């Protein structure tokens, strides 16, 4: 039963089986929390926003229509919840890149440092660029779903992803090596192919 598709569970929630929301909570609280925490850099706020998303699911459950992909629907709610929060409390928007969440130690010290710098570079991006990267890289949303979410064309999504990635690369590059041309650091992680190597996806 726990393997029921999200959409079936949501239809049950809509029809009054509120307890089924618990299963959806277990599936989505992690991804949503990571979406918010990587976007805002604030764990406490992220937990509050996750709660708000599930409250809104209950409040607006009647508006869920069969056939709507639940993941896309829930991220629409998540975006709105964040936008509304910052509209209500604009002062809390200030973000200090030095207040990074702790990075877990990994096997390699160099990799650890790189991950930390990449995280910093991500947090330095303008919010819209950071958001689109998070949506496609971590939240498993299809480009079509992102286009609908952001209210733009599919090609615009592709362009925006590419621009965001370009900026992230520049920012990461500056943090790792300063503005000078690159070195072999891109090949530092064993999870990555050496630069210029093959990139099978």
């Amino acid at each position, binding site marked *: 039963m726990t393997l029921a598709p999200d959409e079936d569970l949501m239809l049950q929630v809509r029809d009054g089986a509120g307890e089924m929301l618990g299963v959806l909570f277990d599936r989505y609280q992690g991804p949503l929390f990571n979406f918010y925490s990587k976007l805002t850099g604030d764990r406490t706020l992220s937990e509050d926003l996750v709660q708000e998303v599930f409250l809104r699911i209950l409040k607006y459950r009647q508006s869920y229509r069969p056939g709507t992909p639940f993941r896309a629907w829930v991220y629409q709610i998540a975006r709105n919840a964040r936008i509304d929060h910052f509209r209500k409390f604009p002062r809390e928007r200030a973000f200090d890149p030095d207040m990074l969440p702790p990075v877990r130690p990994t096997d390699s010290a160099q990799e650890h440092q790189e991950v930390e710098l990449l995280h910093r570079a991500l947090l330095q991006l303008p919010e819209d660029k950071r958001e689109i990267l998070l949506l496609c890289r971590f939240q498993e949303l299809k480009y079509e779903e992102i286009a609908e979410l952001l209210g733009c064309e599919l090609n615009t999504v592709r362009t925006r992803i590419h621009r965001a990635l370009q900026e992230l690369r520049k920012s*990461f590059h500056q943090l790792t090596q300063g503005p000078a041309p690159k070195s072999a650091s891109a090949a530092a992680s064993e999870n990555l192919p050496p630069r210029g190597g093959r*990139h099978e996806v």
Partner: protein
Amino acid sequence: MKCEQIGELLPDYLQGSLSPDQHRTVNAHLEQCADCSEEVAVWRKLSLLPVEQPSPRSRVRFEAMLQAYQTGRSNQPPSNSRWRKLFSPWNVLGWLSSPLGAAAWSAALLAIGVFAGFHTVSPPKPPSPSPELAQVEAELANTKQLVVLSMLQQQSASSRLEGVNFTTREEQLNPQVLSALLHTLRYDPSVDVRLAALDALGRHSAQPQVRSSVVNALQEQQSPLVQVALIDQLVEWHDREAKSRLEKLRQSQDLNPSVRQHADWAISKLN
């Protein structure tokens, strides 16, 4: 191929959705271009970012919220108010087939006809609307208002919800619709409809009547979910006068603990 052209293909390359030919083209470019290949490397490296875990408190909060919601839905306040009784035999079809409904719709259709006539025959002249046009518009508004009032009286919660949503299309609320909404906020048996009414009323905070009703509802509502929504609304309005009422609320002995916690948060926000 130039970086710009590759850039157009890169997002699909990263998702593995290019054709084999295009995939080979991109691979060939990446072997020569340090910047583009570094972009791909950065994309892959993103997967190394730590997955953060929410605190266990998060699940507890969710359980409390869900329980509050379920309790709120089963605790239905009495719905046999005078106002409701007055209109209760109404339903959309019954109302439309009644002489009053038929007359209202005839008037509406006539009004729409005349209104359309005015707009097709002559271009609109905004500086000096004719008295006839003003009258037609007033009749249209009146009909719309009757429909909303009727919807708010329906037996089915979803129809009442629709009625509430209907009111959000208007920038200015007619006093009768406003008072119907305030009534819905206080007495509607469905938690969802009361929450929607609160959302709708939130847009009309300039009306002093709205603010005072929301503050008063704080003491009357038993559903924790509605209480939390009311508290949020007062915080959003930065309603400092609400502070004393919130303090009184948090003293209530049978108050849901999550609501008390929320009231404490609100008091700190209003300070």
